[in-house]
């Protein structure tokens, strides 16, 4: 397709700027000319309830972290529509490979409050066996890949997973979430290139929330966001209002069709804002103005969806109140139970490193057990797991 010109023609990409697909205004009214997506009542309610539950879980757990009951937490506040809206547009058996701020996807798919708590407290029922920090969930049953902290590593994995789905011919696709910060990593570029070359049914879903910890997106990239990068890979792309659950839902629904029916990758960039701190270890007042946050609070994705549902008569003030109360109570009760549970057994230190425990690991473990038997007070968790008598008042012995 050689297209010659005979005068130098430099292009920068400034020639076009991406439009943002948006259906609902902040008052929950459809924009003029906007077409309501085909979203049945029950489906719309499920979507909304998952957004609301995510907000409440986040508020409660952040408070728990502040009380010192939890070592770490990350909120999704402000981005519930992007995450839940996208998930609601998938088949429940499509694979999700998330970054870490996507508890809404699990909430939508029915991860129970118990399951959340067991991971957050790393107790004996945690599927991850107390090895990862809080919020690194995973669920095989719900097709949600266990989170890995190194950023962007899940993106090329999603390309590979989806390629396998294509070969298996099971009609499913993979959606991978990542931040606009993570999109700077080499893994992002590798993933998009391989997906477009190999025609893979994968949806790359960028949550552009304006910040990567303290780094504003203006210091993350010089271009018009993440979406235009798709052009270089000859890939379908759409930019969507990330605070509008309906628009996110519709964009992702259509992206899924492209992925599954044509075996083609799609990039979605959801424009939103990280309303909360990056994590419980972060304090955004060190790098951004409160007024900026306030402006985004007016675009709250939950209120917007709620207003739309109320207008349609699909939701009521009473349901809102009772749902909130039930959830708050449920979260608190469940948290109390989860906190009290035993830690994972000592053996979880050496299992799952390999399919089978190696002789060398077994030797190291036996030595560790002998050591703990000698000093049970110094290792209360290990001692508890070995059924040794421990004087728990020395639980905090040592540093950390």
């Amino acid at each position: 397709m050689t297209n010659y010109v005979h005068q130098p023609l430099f292009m920068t990409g400034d020639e076009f700027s991406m439009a943002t697909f948006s259906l609902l205004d902040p008052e929950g009214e459809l924009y003029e000319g906007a077409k309501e997506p085909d979203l049945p009542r029950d489906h719309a309610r499920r979507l909304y309830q998952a957004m609301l539950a995510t907000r409440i879980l986040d508020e409660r757990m952040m408070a728990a972290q502040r009380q010192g009951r939890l070592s770490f937490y990350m909120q999704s506040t402000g981005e519930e529509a992007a995450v839940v809206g996208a998930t609601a547009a998938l088949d429940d058996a499509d694979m999700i490979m998330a970054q870490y701020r996507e508890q809404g996807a699990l909430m939508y798919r029915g991860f129970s409050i118990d399951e959340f708590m067991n991971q957050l407290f790393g107790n004996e029922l945690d599927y991850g066996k107390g090895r990862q920090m809080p919020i690194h969930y995973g669920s095989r049953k719900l097709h949600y890949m266990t989170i890995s902290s190194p950023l962007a590593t899940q993106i090329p994995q999603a390309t590979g997973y989806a390629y396998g789905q294509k070969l298996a011919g099971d009609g499913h696709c993979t959606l991978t979430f990542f931040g606009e910060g993570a999109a700077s990593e080499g893994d992002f570029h590798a993933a998009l290139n391989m997906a477009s070359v190999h025609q893979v049914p994968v949806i790359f879903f960028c949550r552009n929330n304006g910040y990567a910890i303290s780094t504003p997106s203006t210091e993350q990239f010089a271009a018009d966001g993440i979406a235009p990068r798709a052009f270089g890979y000859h890939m379908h792309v759409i930019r969507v209002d990330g605070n509008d659950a309906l628009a996110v839902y519709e964009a992702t629904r259509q992206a899924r069709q492209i992925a599954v029916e044509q075996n083609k990758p799609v990039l979605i960039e959801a424009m939103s804002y990280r309303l909360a701190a990056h994590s419980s270890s972060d304090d955004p007042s060190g790098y951004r103005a409160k007024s900026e946050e306030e402006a985004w609070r007016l675009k709250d994705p939950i209120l917007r969806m709620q207003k739309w549902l109320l207008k349609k008569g699909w939701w009521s003030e009473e349901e809102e109140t009772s749902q909130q109360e039930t959830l708050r109570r449920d979260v608190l009760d469940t948290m109390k139970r989860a906190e009290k549970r035993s830690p994972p057994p000592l053996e979880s230190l050496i299992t799952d490193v390999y399919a089978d425990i190696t002789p060398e690991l077994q030797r190291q473990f036996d030595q560790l057990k002998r050591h703990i038997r000698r000093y049970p007070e110094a290792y209360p968790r290990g001692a508890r797991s070995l059924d040794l008598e421990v004087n728990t008042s020395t639980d905090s012995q040592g540093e950390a």
Partner: protein
Amino acid sequence: MPTMNMLQAINNALDIAMAEDDKVICFGEDVGVFGGVFRATSHLQEKYGKSRCFNTPLVEQGIIGFANGLAAQGSVPVAEIQFADYIFPAFDQIVNESAKFRYRSGDLFNVGGLTIRTPYGGGIAGGLYHSQSPEAYFTHTPGLKVVVPRNPYQAKGLLLAAIRDPDPVLFLEPKRLYRASVGEVPQEDYQLPIGEAEVIKEGTDMTLVGWGAQMEVIGKAVELAEEQGIACEVIDLRTLLPWDADTVVESVLKTGRLIVSHEAPLTGGFAGEIAATIQERCFLYLESPIARVTGLDTPFPLVLEKEYLPDHLKIFEAIRESVNF
């Protein structure tokens, strides 16, 4: 003499290096206006401007590749990798490029100005991706220098030496001690030698070798041992590549016993290198097998971190076993 914690000492060293030489440039994820997630680069952007202290996009291979180019040009980059756990995307740039620049070009080009700072280690409830001690991967790489300070005084003196060293230096900062380790640090410019171990404490019965955060743990074990009348000699290696074998040899010739301790897994860990060298050079003087007290051969856990980590009790047990061999 002012008292500083380790972060303040590092910040102070960077400040001195930047004030002295405007070729010194600090960058990495969040290091700009925010001063880094641990605040090691606080106020440097304010003082030296955005062109000398800045946020990079979130791409470690980019950070180190960029730093390599910058160093080859003659600048003095001090690149921060936010956590040592996230240094692996930059592994190729460090191991294949930084380390081999001088060698492959016959010294036409080098990246001697490069320093890579990164927080490492456990004990902070960080789970498997915020706790690793990856030093051994890098000590297997000729052309790099690997330095690990144990307290604020060491951190400042060694960091200033690293920045001015003619070779690329990986500077591993024990993050558990960032705020916990506080001590007197001279306000003025000083350097501590790279490639030299330090005998922190003299003793006749046993040699203990470690680096970084393990030094504090070794110290506690030694106190327990002294209560039993065992006199320990304690050596902080400070530089793992190239490491100061002579100082350790000299000590073991005197004590006849050696224990090496690190947080990283046992197999392929740097303690193995030390043990092999010492048995070669001190074989006839050894009175018990050289012992290694390390993490397990597993990824780093979260809930059972205390069980996993080599602590003072595990080292104390190794001392007893060695003495009673």
